[in-house]
């Protein structure tokens, strides 16, 4: 099985936020929840870079490690998913996540957290693939249809890459070779313990 990864080429990202919009639309993500976002570092200064970030589907996922109800699981494609039926919305995964991926709907008292929501790598949840129940809780399951995550698929500059880690790393290396520079694969060291330098 492939080891699915995300890679954002910061030299190409133009902060158009199409990935964010595509994600929200594809999964009908509620207001206030952002499975994917674009962060601009060194804004207005030399070396400004924009990076699209979502759940990186870590190798040794911190969210899964700290979850009090053990609601996370990793698929055969190395996608980190969770079961909303056993999530209690404690918020621990947000404290542990290096990428700020877990999101919580504001429900109930004191702006308390509802069940956690995060990027599923367009791979749905524990229910039967492509059912209405799965769509309601987790959004569409493109992986089960043989498609890759929509954010990367519709990235206009092809900055955001999704797919087998070895293949997207190869694409990135070829780019770096071609243009002679790169700014590294953001989050790879933290998520996959891989050091893909430019």
């Amino acid at each position, binding site marked *: 099985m492939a*080891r699915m990864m995300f890679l954002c080429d*910061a030299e190409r990202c133009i902060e158009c936020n199409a990935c*964010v919009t595509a994600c929200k639309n594809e999964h009908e993500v509620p207001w206030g929840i*952002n499975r994917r*976002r674009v*962060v*601009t*570092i*060194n*804004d207005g200064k*030399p*070396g400004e*870079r924009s*990076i699209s*970030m979502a759940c990186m589907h870590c190798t040794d996922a*911190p969210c899964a*490690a*700290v979850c*009090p*109800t*053990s*609601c996370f699981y990793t698929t055969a494609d190395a996608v980190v998913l969770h*079961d909303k039926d*056993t*999530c*209690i*919305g404690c*918020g621990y995964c*947000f*404290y*542990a996540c*290096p*990428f*700020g991926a877990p999101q*919580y709907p504001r429900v109930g*008292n*004191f*702006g*308390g*957290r509802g069940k956690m929501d995060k990027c599923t790598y367009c791979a749905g949840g524990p229910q039967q693939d492509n059912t209405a129940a799965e769509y309601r809780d987790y959004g569409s399951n493109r992986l089960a249809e043989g498609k890759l995550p929509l954010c990367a698929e519709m990235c206009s500059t092809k900055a955001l890459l999704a797919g087998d880690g*070895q293949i997207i*790393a*190869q694409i990135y*290396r070829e780019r*770096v*070779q071609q*243009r002679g520079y790169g*700014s*590294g*694969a*953001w*989050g790879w*060291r*933290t998520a*996959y313990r*891989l*050091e*893909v*330098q*430019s």
Partner: protein
Amino acid sequence: MSRLLLAFVAAALLAAAPAAAQNVVGTPTNPVAAPPQALELEMQQMLTGGRIAGRITIPDQNAANLIQPAGQSWREFHNVTLTWVGGIAILGILAVLALFYATRGRIPIEGGPSGRTIERFNLLDRSVHWMTASTFVILALSGLNLTFGRFLILPLIGPEAFATLSLWGKIAHNFLAFPFTLGIVLMLVLWVKDNIPNGRDIAWFKAGGGLLGNGAHPPAAGRFNGGQKMVFWLTVLGGAAVAVSGYILVFPFAFTDIAGQQLAHIVHGLLSVLMIAAIMAHIYIGSIGMEGAFDAMGSGQVDLNWAKEHHALWVEQEMARGRGAAPPAGAAAAGD
């Protein structure tokens, strides 16, 4: 796989270097600082515990953090430090109490029960105590469940039942925090005047208090002895710190950022397990550990002999104020 990638990367770097050098042609432009390398920045922030943050166009400012390596340290705290500190504190105090009970047994009233009682805690005192105590027990159990439940309870009852239990535990934890805090405040108001530490407490501790001094009476104490004052201040100060850190967690990101939330959880978790261990000792000495002690918070009426042995000065004061001891219920008045 990672080694393979590294090898590829090294090759790419070597190939890229001359290409970059050839790019410089014509008039030199202003030098531009090299863009930060993801690897270098991640490594540097990981070592210093800092965050990589930037600008974001969505309202949620927490999302402006790109990478926060401190999450890994928090994970280490939650999964390793807290589990060990909590486990050792709670099992340790259980072992100490079991050993104490096995060697010392139940501490009796030396003179035996007199049959005459004196009021130690009135209805208000007792209501405040039991409101705080009952909420504390539920808060403690639902809190411990978040750290130990998945090892101890989840395998027994299965994921669905455990999730339901934990969800109700979380709701109870969030709501009962309020009566618990009220109880802490009321206890402070009701009992602080009798809990100011003084010289007698030092003598009391030197003599081993009411616990270790076998046979001999503990040194005379006022309404509260040194040990009770310790429990009082631990409850009030510890309870206040646990309450404040707890409210920060209940209203996530209302007062602080991700680093503050993590710190609040660390303070909350560590203080809570230590308080649970201390309160377990308090429960022991107030129930099976000492004859006559439970009545103080049960009926509020303690045996006069118990009171004289443990709180001689307080009994004198009460007597002086004319609040004498009541005769045993059902006793006939002399002459009848």
